[in-house]
């Protein structure tokens, strides 16, 4: 059930970033397997596991703008985030089923990322401290996360979305009153 929700969430989140493929007659016929963005460059498949990300050479992924990372474990965290830091054009980072419990404010945030999605995995208060360093006007989505007992300290202009999450009622109230925009979808609140 949770994976269905995550899949739906991924679908919704991916739609606005999908560049429509050019009509077949305008594509180079020799490379039919690729889709093409507007600059006519091959589009990088945004789906990575920690292993596949660390296996890629930096040149292969240097132009990656959106990354969907599945199943990060604590043992890979430093290497994976060091690699993510090296992507100068990365503007959207989706972390699915990742262990983010050991991240904290001393870890750097990818500088140009304006959209974060955290779906499932392990999230704790130190993860939120890490994420709270985002600049204003960043969009942060939590999907299927248990956030009960956690406090949020995002900049006022962060746009927040909680999909199928559990939160404490006072934290939800504080979020709404402090943030420019907050969306709740199918959330459960506890006292």
């Amino acid at each position, binding site marked *: 059930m949770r994976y269905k929700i995550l899949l739906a969430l991924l679908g919704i989140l991916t739609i606005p970033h999908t560049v429509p493929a050019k009509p077949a007659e305008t594509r180079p016929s020799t490379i039919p397997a690729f889709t093409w963005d507007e600059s006519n460059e091959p589009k990088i498949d945004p789906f990575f596991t920690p292993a596949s990300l660390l296996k890629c050479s930096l040149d292969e992924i240097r132009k990656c703008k959106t990354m969907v990372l599945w199943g990060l474990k604590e043992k890979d965290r430093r290497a994976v985030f060091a690699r993510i830091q090296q992507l100068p054009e990365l503007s959207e980072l989706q972390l699915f089923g990742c262990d983010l419990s050991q991240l904290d404010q001393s870890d750097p945030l990818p500088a140009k990322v304006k959209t974060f999605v955290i779906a499932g995995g392990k999230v704790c208060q130190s993860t939120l401290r890490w994420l709270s360093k985002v600049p204003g006007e960043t969009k942060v989505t939590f999907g299927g996360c248990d956030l009960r007992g956690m406090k949020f300290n995002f900049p006022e202009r962060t746009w927040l979305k909680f999909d199928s999450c559990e939160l404490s009622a006072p934290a*939800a*109230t504080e979020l709404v009153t402090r943030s420019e925009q907050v*969306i709740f979808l199918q959330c459960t609140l506890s006292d």
Partner: protein
Amino acid sequence: MRLKTLFCFLILLLPAIGPVANADERMDELNYSGEDFLQVPKGDLESCGTLELDGFKEKERSAVLRRVTELPKLTVLNLTGCDLSLTDEKDPVPTKVKVVMIAGGKLSQKTIRWLSKFPTGTGIAFAECDVRRLEFDLPNVHFLAFEHCEVLKSQIPKLVQKHDVRFTENTFHDDK
């Protein structure tokens, strides 16, 4: 400025509701005052998909709402600056509407009871409304949005528990 904000608001809300019409079907967007709306020949309204009613008064309410329910293609209803305070569950609702936007005007608990009659899956957006003291008992509603509204802090948990909801730049008040 207000219209631009409201238009953006509506555009943002639509993806959450889903497509409201086939692309090949002709759907008009029409904008009337309550008085003008009652004067328009019925034939001119048949292809109306989006209707904005600007400032109808209590004396026009029954006739206007009856006419709204006669629009066969209406899926988006914008009520701007309208007195809806006496609208209640006895008033008719258009059956194909997917999005209702209420901007400004007058609301009461009766209005919420009227809104509860809208079809299952409807999205309702409130903009620049004072919604303090209102209980949002809207089980059929798919999505609620509040933008630039006056809201009580104590309303927030109830809204989140019951509905999919978006809050944007509202003013929040403590209960007295």
